[in-house]
């Protein structure tokens, strides 16, 4: 029987790591993630969790230590945010390519400069293509649930990929909410007590992890990784189904809210989705045909689920918390438009950027995104993407007038 408790998302995910009986934790504290490793270090020191806590000197080392731990078959966990994730970058590819199912919680944070410890999704987007399974949380309950689920799915012999669990820095990490904490017995029914790994490094059974990949082998290695990564979606969904059967909470790659039949859909990831639900409710009361799509699974990208979820819509307004400088606008916008390109009855896709570096996105800004999004879909706009919450009229996010092509 679950217990109703009040926890901030950081502590909720620490509880999940404890209940998962994690073997090795290697983490470096960084705002706004600090409470996660702090609470875990306390648990290990107090004997509540029998794990090796490695107080590493950097995030690069944190991820490297986790790779080593995972290679011998240990259940490994780390956590970081923003620039800490950037410092890890190189080793992220090592973890996914060597198929180490490390679980990492990211309390999403903006990137410098100017220095910002507050939330946006710039850190996520820079690690988009690292081959990690990536999911987003909307609230503290989900922070707990996704962390627990991440161990189960990542360690599945048919998956064997590391998993990033994203939740918004401060907005969730430092905010206390009511949530359910399950019994250990329920957790044990969902997640095996010990990780099973047939390739664990063992001096009595020598094998090579991380061999050299000359040009005549590298491509085969990468293609086999990509095929396995795409296939993992089936197991990701299966893991959520089994999670639901035990804990009563069901999750999906794409989660629509009052989206059926809606002409205009707002699409976003993370905690803003809950604010957007209130906006949808208000607009629905006024008789507007609007809905919300919350993207939970960011990688591998759920193409077919997205296409099904938006099939009745005329306009999709995508809200990004990151700029792809000089690119198409926001990374989520770019992915969504690309996923829908060439389908029958392709909806218009309008990109918005907002909520950068911890800027509040109140309901009125989301309302504006809906209204202005519809307007842009109808009349077009010179700007490549729209913005919310910026002081001063935004002009100039567009191509300069000249066209520079070689003379015929």
């Amino acid at each position: 029987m679950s217990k109703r408790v009040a926890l901030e998302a950081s502590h909720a995910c620490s509880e999940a790591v404890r209940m998962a009986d994690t073997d090795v934790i290697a983490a470096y504290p960084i705002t706004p993630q600090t409470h996660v490793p702090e609470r875990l270090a306390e648990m290990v020191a107090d004997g509540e969790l029998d794990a090796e806590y490695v107080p590493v000197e950097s995030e690069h080392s944190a991820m490297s230590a986790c790779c080593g731990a995972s290679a011998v078959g240990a259940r490994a966990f780390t956590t970081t945010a923003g620039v800490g994730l950037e410092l890890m970058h190189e080793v992220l590819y090592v973890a996914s390519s060597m198929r180490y199912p490390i679980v990492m919680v990211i309390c999403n944070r903006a990137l410098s400069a100017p220095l910002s410890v507050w939330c946006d999704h710039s850190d996520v987007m820079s690690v988009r293509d690292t081959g990690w399974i990536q999911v987003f949380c909307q609230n503290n309950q989900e922070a707990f649930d996704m962390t627990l689920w991440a161990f189960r799915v990542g360690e599945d012999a048919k998956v064997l990929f590391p998993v990033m669990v994203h939740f918004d820095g401060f907005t969730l990490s430092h905010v206390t909410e009511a949530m359910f904490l399950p019994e250990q017995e329920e957790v044990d029914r969902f997640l095996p007590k010990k990780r099973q790994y047939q390739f664990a490094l063992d001096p009595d059974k020598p094998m090579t992890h991380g061999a050299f990949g000359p040009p005549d082998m590298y491509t085969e290695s990468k293609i086999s990784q990509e095929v396995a990564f795409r296939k993992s979606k089936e197991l990701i969904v299966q893991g959520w189904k089994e999670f639901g059967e035990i804990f009563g909470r069901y999750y999906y790659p794409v989660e629509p809210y009052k989206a059926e039949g809606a002409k205009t859909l707002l699409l976003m990831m993370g905690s803003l989705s809950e604010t957007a639900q209130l906006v949808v409710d208000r607009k629905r009361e006024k008789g507007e045909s609007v809905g919300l799509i919350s993207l939970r699974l960011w990688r591998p990208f759920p193409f077919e689920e997205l296409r099904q979820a938006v099939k009745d819509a005329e306009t999709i307004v995508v809200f990004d918390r990151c700029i792809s400088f000089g690119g198409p606008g926001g990374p989520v916008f770019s992915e969504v438009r690309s996923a829908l390109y060439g389908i029958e009855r392709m909806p218009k896709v309008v990109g918005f950027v907002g909520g950068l570096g911890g800027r509040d996105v109140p309901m009125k800004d989301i309302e504006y995104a809906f209204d202005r999004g519809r307007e842009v879909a109808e009349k077009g706009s010179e700007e490549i993407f729209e913005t919310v919450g910026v002081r001063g009229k935004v002009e100039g996010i567009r191509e300069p007038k000249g066209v520079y092509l070689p003379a015929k």
Partner: protein
Amino acid sequence: MATRARKTKTAVKKLRTASEVTWRDMEVGSILTDAGNASLRRTGDWRSERPILDKEKCNKCGLCWLYCPDAAVDACEDGYYEINLYSCKGCGICAEICPKEAITMIEEEEE
């Protein structure tokens, strides 16, 4: 230890060449479950200089064998040493360490 080395060698003999391996044959994470297969791969290809050993000068001290970082120096039954050019990378440590200056490095282009 000796038994293990023998076992590894047998396993290695079953290895295919790269052109026979498809992406479907890759182990999870490109892990090599039969460690020690480097002995089957010609890895001396990128050498730019090769060591030449002059037996006349050699006093069989074995420092070249000891210092070679790639185990490319083989000990022979007569007490002398032979450099295995199949895996020698041409680093020149053997030539540097040889107290009798019996090893010299020559350009690969030279005969």
